[in-house]
């Protein structure tokens, strides 16, 4: 979301109450862009059928609804076995990488996902545009059938109404 902030209109600053100085816009925190209005939301992915032993399942995706951007804040999973995952988005941006010369960017699930009680926090947030998608490759490492549920928790981000 790259709309200008409705308070400072993109300037990033507003006048202080005395009018003699400027301060960072409290609405956009000084970056001039509309921070939007957030509403809690979760997107879920379930492997159906379950992954077979050591199966690599590539190019899986969750399509983000077209009404609002999605801001991912936490990652959670529930699985019957261990797995590795590589996250990327609709623009082809990969969120994990191995070191120089590495040939595989998949991350063990317990390094990247929490659960409902102890979710894994993403800092900074990851914004996925409306109508785009979250993509991932899954690889079973349990050596047995594996049913995986991924939950991407965060907010739908709507533009700030003009009247506010």
């Amino acid at each position: 979301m790259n709309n200008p902030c409705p308070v400072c209109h993109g300037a990033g600053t507003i006048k202080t109450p005395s009018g003699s100085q400027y301060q960072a816009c409290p609405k956009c925190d000084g970056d001039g862009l509309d921070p939007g209005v957030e509403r809690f939301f979760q997107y879920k992915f379930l492997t159906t059928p379950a992954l077979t032993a050591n199966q690599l399942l590539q190019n899986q995706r969750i399509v983000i609804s077209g009404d609002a951007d999605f801001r991912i804040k936490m990652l959670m999973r529930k699985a019957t076995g261990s797995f590795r995952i590589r996250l990327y988005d609709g623009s082809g941006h990969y969120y994990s990488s191995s070191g120089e010369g590495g040939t595989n960017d998949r991350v063990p699930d317990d390094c990247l996902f929490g659960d409902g009680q102890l979710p894994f926090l993403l800092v900074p947030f990851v914004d996925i545009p409306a109508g785009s998608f979250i993509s991932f490759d899954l690889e079973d490492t349990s050596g047995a059938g594996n049913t995986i549920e991924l939950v991407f928790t965060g907010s739908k981000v709507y533009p700030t109404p003009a009247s506010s």
Partner: protein
Amino acid sequence: MGLPIQLHKIPGAPELAMRNPTYLDAVAIYRGRFAGHSPTDALRRLASSREYHWRALVCPDVTRQTVPSMGTVEDQFTVTPGSIITAISGSSSQAAGFTLQVTDAGSGQKIAQIPVSWLAGFGGANGSSKFPNRSLPVYFPDLWPISDKGLVLVSLVHAAAAANSLAVCIQIAEKH
């Protein structure tokens, strides 16, 4: 020592409430868990920043994740200078775990040095016993910008007598 980051663009401007300040606090288990610091205080300043994006560095890559007894894995990552390491998470198939060292190659500073077993240090036996789960990330109480060279060195030493499947995932806020 981590350097404080300044997200406000006007020097001297009063500290304003960050956007969405509460989501980190909503997860009570992450508050005040590391040596008396609240990592979320530092993280909150980054959470909604548009100057950074989230990235995970995994070491070693899949093809080298099984490490022989007393084996060592070294890796290096290139990141945008000014990027900030926010957290480290790890996994190990052996209870003995591994030792870890993360170095900023440009400045030569050791960003993280965990000379005892990762699992012992963070799983409850030693160190911060308040961490309830070994796979929880260790969130940094200070934010450390990577220096101009943009090179991060990671060294893992496997401490068990048997082969081990291990991995470390370093979370960074990478500068655009």
